[in-house]
């Protein structure tokens, strides 16, 4: 049978079947959607955090903290050393008071903490932006080690170290999401299989007739596979709509005056690849469910 006729037959019959059993099919679609919302939610969070970390990494910042009680000459010497480095794009001095002000802006809930302390614990520092060609761990490590040896410098910290630790956390989060989402997805596959198994039994006579008139097994089963694929596709589309709504709500929350730090995240929805992967996952779940349902069809007249 020609491929176009085969597909037209299978999907036509599948849509006909779905239209006739909306309630039963809806349960499979909802379960698939739920599993993909769980999985997709974790992926969305980790995707955005990875984006944040990537942008953070791209900034190429190094912060050189000065010792308490540093002298003006020491401050000038450090500034000169930084200025002379060919790896530097720009730098600025941040006084202890400026550091405290920034802390209050970034952590509004914790800002009052500084008020209760006798002294401002935040040190003065130089915030340095490294040239793009040197934004790698080796170059940043070398720069930091050099500056740490300067008189008056307490410590030099570059973002990559922190970023690496955060990346471990993000990967962990993604792993948890995959495991949780995987568990729910298995439940979705089983639900789809049961829905289609009921359909197979309900279409028993039709299956018997098709086999008797000379339809191949691919024709007999094709409609059920198509139905599983459609259910999975609808479930994944539904999940993406929910996730998009959540993303939009998150963006509205941030732009409406949420914690400033959140603005750094720049909430983004899935890119095309992740979008397609989630759709593919939904379709695969439906197909696997349909394949599992064939045990009922196998026992019918052959």
């Amino acid at each position: 049978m020609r491929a176009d006729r085969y597909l037209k037959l299978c999907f036509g019959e599948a849509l006909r079947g779905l239209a006739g059993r909306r309630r039963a099919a809806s349960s499979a679609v909802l379960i698939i959607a739920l599993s993909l919302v769980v999985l997709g939610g974790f992926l969305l969070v980790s995707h955005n955090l990875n984006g944040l970390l990537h942008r953070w990494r791209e900034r190429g910042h190094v912060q050189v903290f000065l010792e308490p009680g540093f002298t003006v000459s020491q401050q000038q010497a450090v500034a000169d050393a930084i200025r002379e480095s060919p790896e530097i794009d720009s730098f600025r001095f941040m006084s202890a008071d400026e550091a405290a002000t920034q802390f209050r802006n970034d952590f509004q809930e914790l800002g009052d903490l500084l008020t209760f302390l006798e002294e401002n614990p935040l040190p003065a520092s130089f915030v340095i932006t490294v040239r793009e060609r040197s934004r790698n761990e080796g170059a940043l490590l070398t720069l930091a080690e050099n500056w740490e040896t300067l008189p008056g410098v307490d410590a030099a910290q570059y973002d990559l170290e922190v970023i690496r630790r955060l990346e471990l956390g993000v990967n962990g989060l993604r792993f948890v999401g995959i495991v949780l989402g995987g568990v729910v997805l298995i439940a979705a596959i089983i639900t789809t299989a049961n829905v289609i198994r009921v359909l197979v039994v309900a279409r028993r006579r039709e299956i018997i007739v098709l086999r008797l008139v000379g339809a191949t097994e691919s024709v007999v089963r094709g409609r059920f596979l198509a139905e599983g694929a459609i259910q999975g596709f609808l479930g994944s589309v539904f999940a993406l709509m929910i996730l998009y709504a959540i993303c939009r709500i998150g963006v509205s929350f941030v732009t409406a005056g949420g914690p400033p730090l959140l603005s750094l995240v720049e909430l983004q929805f899935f890119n095309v690849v992740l979008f397609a992967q989630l759709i593919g996952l939904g379709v695969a779940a439906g197909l696997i469910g349909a394949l599992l349902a064939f045990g009922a069809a196998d026992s019918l007249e052959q």
Partner: protein
Amino acid sequence: MIRCFHVTKRYGAITALTDISFQIDEGEFVFLTGQSGAGKTTLLRLLYRAELPTSGQLIVAGRNLATMPRRQVPRFRRRLGLVFQDFKLIEDRTVFDNVALVGLAVGFSFTESQRRASELLRLVDVDGRAQLFPAQVSGGEQQRVSIARALMTAPKLLLADEPTGNLDPERANEIMRIFHAINQSGTTVLVATHDADLIGTVGRRTLTLEAGRLNTLAVASQVS
């Protein structure tokens, strides 16, 4: 068209058919008769390869059924037309769709399936009922729809298992007239029935089964 060599069929300890041998030539119209439980349906199931014989050889439409791989059964069945006592129509499809679906399932285009279904329903005089559902038409009409469906693939052999079992005598005769017309067009027809009156009225060669054995006195010709 059909050559049966010493076919036996057992279900565990029960022997349904014992050493059956016969031959049906192309273009013949043959009745398969016998009391209920004689093995008529079992023999027909062997002929359309729903089951395999326990022993013996069956050659149908040029194919050795005992050695035919399972994946070739669908293509083999397209050479056959099957008609059953209970019609086996799909209740939630219209009369027309019951027939057209066969065309789509075996690879005809949508247009071709529609055309053939229309022609065949006209042939069996049910075209006026095409948009009704099986439950909305009479038993005789349902059987005619079933015959139209069986003819969709232009079969060389038509097998009918008690096709008039659920019909009154008048409707039964109508069905036999349709089978006669099909046979006249060149299709070999084998009808399993226990209706002696029907056989007597039509007057065709008869194979008689008794307790799973072929009654040789009633057989016009056999494979030697």
